[in-house]
């Protein structure tokens, strides 16, 4: 789907289901640093056929959305609010990693724009290893390799993908390599400098779902606990054993079902 937001072209995947003439609730899936809509390929089409208008969006300067990239979580959250205004209704937000921070901030600070929030691979803070930041700033392929290496659990490094024939690690690396020049570095900096996670969590009033990998090396499970403890609204916590940071790729079936259950309730 292509549309114009703030005079910039926005692109997203809708599971090939048009929004036109439909009134189901809208779920917006927000990708992480250096990625795009296709990271949700195992969820978007399913949600689009199970009671939602699903939009796996390309954030500005990612995928096929027009730039420039937005350099902070707060700016990205404002962009999501603009998206809600564009559609004229509140959104179910599903975010991964940087996208989870964006969803969290939006839910905490723009309550009228958010119906529920699902956070995958999230922590109260997201420091970035300086050598990863350096590689990303230099558009060095090593940045994609490091994220791929750290982003998948030991088990899933060897694959056994429920989607026949696809390589989990191969897909992640190729996706990050496809990011526009400089975008990954900007995204990682946005993650590293965001210090509003707990403040946002405090403000949230909508239901929250946490989907967390037990072997997440990028946002270790323990870093999500302060967020979980802070959220006072209705919340569910799903811990996924033998799973790393790339939760929706590593456990696509479970993530699909948990998202559907959470948002349907």
């Amino acid at each position, binding site marked *: 789907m292509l549309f114009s937001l703030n005079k910039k072209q926005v692109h997203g*995947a809708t599971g090939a289901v048009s929004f036109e003439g439909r009134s189901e609730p809208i779920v917006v899936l927000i990708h992480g640093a250096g990625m795009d809509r*296709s990271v949700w*390929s195992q969820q978007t089409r399913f949600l689009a056929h199970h009671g939602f208008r699903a939009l796996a969006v390309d954030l500005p300067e990612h995928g096929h959305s027009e730039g420039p990239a937005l350099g902070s979580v707060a700016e990205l959250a404002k962009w999501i609010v603009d998206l809600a205004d564009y559609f004229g209704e509140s959104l179910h937000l599903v975010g991964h990693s940087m996208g989870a921070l964006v969803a969290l901030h939006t839910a905490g600070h723009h309550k009228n724009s958010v119906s529920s929030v699902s956070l995958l691979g999230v922590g109260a803070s997201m420091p970035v*290893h300086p050598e990863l930041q350096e590689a990303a700033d230099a558009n060095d392929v090593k940045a994609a390799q490091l994220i791929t290496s750290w982003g998948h659990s030991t088990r899933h490094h060897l*694959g*056994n993908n429920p989607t*026949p024939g*696809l*390589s989990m690690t191969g897909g992640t690396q*190729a996706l990050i390599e496809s990011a526009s020049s400089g975008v990954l570095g900007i995204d990682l900096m946005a993650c590293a400098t965001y210090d509003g996670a707990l403040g946002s969590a405090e403000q949230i009033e909508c239901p929250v779902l946490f989907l967390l990998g037990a072997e997440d090396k990028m946002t270790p499970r323990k870093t999500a606990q302060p967020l979980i403890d802070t959220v006072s609204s209705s919340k569910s916590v799903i811990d996924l054993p033998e799973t790393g940071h790339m939760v929706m790729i590593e456990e696509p079936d479970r993530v699909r079902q948990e998202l559907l259950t959470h948002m349907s309730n």
Partner: protein
Amino acid sequence: MVEPEFRRFDTRALHAGQHPDPSTGSRAVPIHQTTSYVFDSVDHAAGLYNLETSGHIYSRISNPTVAVLEERIASLEGGVGAVCTASGMAALHLAVATLLNSGDHIVASRNIYGGAFILMNHTLPRFGITTTFVDPRDPEEFAKAIQKNTRLIFAETLGNPGIEVLDIDAVSDVAHAAGLPLCVDSTFCTPYLINPIEHGADIITHSATKFLGGHGIAIGGVVVDGGRFDWDASGKFPTLTEPYEGYHNITFTEEFGPAALSMRARAEGLKDFGACMSPANAFYLLQGVETLPLRMAKHVENTKQVIEMLDNHDAVQWIKHPDHPSHPDHDLAKRLYPKGAGAILSFGVKGGRDAGRKFIENVSLASHLANVGDAKTLVIHPGSTTHQQMSDEDLETAGISEDLVRVSVGLEDADDICSDLSKALRASQR
């Protein structure tokens, strides 16, 4: 300094794509000898058919045993995915049929497997797809042959049977400058000797029948999707970038991003054309892949010894192997193939066609048959077998002379291989 940590090649050759079977504990990959799979519910079935959920429907489209092989090869090649097929030729056809339509054009190396040449030169034109053949040693020839309707550049990493070495980096630059993908067949190399994706290739095909299996007991092929080509930016591939009515108007690049090609190849190509790999063959081929690094190391080591023997034999007119200093691609081979440029070589027997025939008839350890990449040493005279349907002119263009004998060096003791070939060469001169 931090470095990414991935399982190494030898480990992935044994483990990628598989964990011990959770219900039985089976360590080996089970053979899922089944045509079809029970659905949990009507909704589950609908979701599978609509690509909403992952899993298996029918073994023509996917099968758990085959999927392990696909993921393993994708991992070894560094791709985003792979689709196994009934044969290497089926893999080439699948790649072409997924991307091209009637009216499209291919630029291909002229030094390719005879079956691939026949497909492109005689069969595909019946479906409106034409090919221009060029010298694989000259990237400029690829560039000059590109037309407005060209949609694919195709070559073999190591040519057949002259073992021409493709400068993958240079030819991929030519392809990408024209908004085209480079598809290479890497059957002679396997991912042990080279990962073409690292050099710019976008699609890799293999005849898994050869070195990947290594045992000569199962026919199979595979298409590997590199996942780096920007189909949307190219704008020349509507099968990937425009809605497909066959799956409720799915647009493969929009939904699957880097994996668009492999998803379309499976959803359309395997489903509609049906050239799938059987689970039993996938099992056999997996047994081969498990020992690929050990076998390929021995193949190239034995090849070095055979080259040395041939180099010093009076009955040998010439030798074609990139590891031989006389080969025109020797320097390029040293750069691209530091472990060795494969285990297939050709040589000319003094005395031409008759001497060549005598040589073939006098080998006793080596087998005379139409295959390469077996654990056993194989010999053949291409002009009378694999390339026999080519005209004299086409044979000459492909660099196949009447005295040419092709050898696929096996895993026997190198001294025994050399002794056998040497005796047959002596016999050829009587």
